[in-house]
């Protein structure tokens, strides 16, 4: 008769061998999925931030048509489910490119890269939320800051770069760190269009080994670890952005 402690030890051994990096363990597959998730989120971030910034600029401009164009953009991408946006981009782009190719007389089956489709869809969603964050940060900066810049003879671009932008970053950071966490979680959706991210890799492992709870639990823990790591990094960035305020 085995005692329960032995039973637990045997189970632990089995789990560890399932998660090992050896050929019959799934550690390496899951690690590659983690890499895909993180690189997708990191690749989306700069485009999303830049687009969000310019949309916020358009939203607070005095020109009504510019505001209207920006508001249509955010209404669409904040109103559609992220999954549907992803499908629209993935299948829509495929359809569009295919039609363009047949119009030009090229007969090939064209496949859109799932990574790029994920980047475009997630970037569109991220930028529309980011524009709201930037907009409220813009509104928190008093108009005198601009006037001061112009009064000392800076051009509007210089005023933006040297006076407004540093304050804007400080005001927008908490909101942006929230959006980054949402982006990280939204990357899970690209598993549906065939990108081998964390969810897809653990899904395969779960089907092969029939240990679904273990593997999906590990996926959840990995996302939690990424979230914790992100908050540490954002803590550093926030301190860096506020470094001038601490000077007494």
């Amino acid at each position, binding site marked *: 008769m085995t005692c329960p402690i032995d039973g637990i030890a045997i189970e632990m051994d089995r789990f560890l061998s399932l998660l090992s990096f050896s050929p019959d363990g799934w550690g390496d597959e899951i690690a590659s999925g983690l890499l895909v998730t993180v690189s997708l989120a990191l690749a989306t971030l700069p485009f999303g931030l830049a687009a969000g910034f310019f949309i916020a600029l*358009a939203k607070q*401009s*005095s*020109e*009504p*048509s*510019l*505001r*209207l*164009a*920006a508001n*249509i953009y955010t*209404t*669409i991408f*904040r*109103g*559609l*489910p*992220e*999954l*549907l946006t992803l*499908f*629209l981009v993935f*299948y*829509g782009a495929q*359809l569009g490119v295919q039609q363009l190719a047949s119009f030009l007389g090229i007969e090939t089956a064209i496949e859109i890269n799932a990574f790029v489709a994920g980047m475009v869809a997630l970037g569109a969603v991220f930028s529309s939320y980011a524009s709201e964050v930037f907009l409220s940060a813009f509104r928190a900066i008093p108009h005198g800051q601009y006037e001061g810049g112009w009064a000392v003879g800076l051009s509007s671009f210089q005023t933006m770069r040297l006076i407004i932008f540093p304050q804007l970053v400080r005001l927008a950071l908490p909101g942006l760190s929230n959006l980054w*966490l949402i982006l990280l*979680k*939204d*990357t*899970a*959706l690209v*598993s*549906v269009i065939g990108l081998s991210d964390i*969810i897809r890799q653990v*899904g395969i492992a*779960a089907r092969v080994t*029939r*240990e*679904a*709870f*273990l593997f*999906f*639990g590990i*996926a*959840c823990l990995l*996302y*939690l670890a990424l*979230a*914790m790591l992100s908050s540490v990094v954002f803590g550093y960035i926030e301190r860096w952005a506020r470094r001038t305020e601490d000077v007494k």
Partner: protein
Amino acid sequence: MSTASRLDVIKPPEPSRAWTKQRIVGYFLVSLWGLAALGLIIFLVRAWNPELFSRYAPSYFSGLIITIQLVGLSLLLGALLSLPIAYARDATSKWAAWPSYMYVYFFRGTPLLAQTFLIYYGVGSFKSPLEALGLWWFFRDAWYCALLAFTLNTAAYQAEILRGAVKSVPSGQWEGADSLGLPRLLTFRKIVLPQALIVALRPYGNEIILMIKGSAIVAIITVYDLMGETRRAYSRTFDFQTYLWAAIIYLAIVETLRNLIEWIERRITRHLKR
């Protein structure tokens, strides 16, 4: 005399608005959107297929009903579950505060998709004990699993909304009610909650919208909600308009809700306007 002559003065006409760089870009972008809308309408008109419509319109409708049921029920159950969680989060006892903190951290820190998979596929690992408990019928059904996952998820978010809103009510309100000898529960219900709800309305509205958008993922675990029906229609017809119709329906729902919430907010803050 002088008043009359002053009235006779004719104002110069407004200077015509200059074609600034901003205005050109703005007009260009708006016309781009206009072209996109026109293209969409032309595409939908040309792709219009009465047979397709009569075949799939009822299934879209039933999918919409499933979506609304799922979201409505999970929001309601989540609201109930969020009450003890929000209460325990600020409890002085560590044994109450820590678990609820961990709960909220877990469900807000992981993707809803992973949580849904964990419940739908993961709980299958415990099939025999669940069968022994007589709970297997619940976890076998994708709809129930989605409902459970969404309820647990939204409870975490709603607990944070509730906690933030209750904390935003100044403590003087509690003390004032205390000095009048009102019991704590009555104070909460009649004094604190109405003020907290004004703060909570917008986040709650956002949570409803997020749940409607998030509910699209149940299509992946074979629940035929609006998204699921859309995917089924697309896999049978390979007609891109199936996705466009779904997009139009989702946009219409979200925009209606957003405007409704704004209207409610204007209405319940009337007394704060000057």
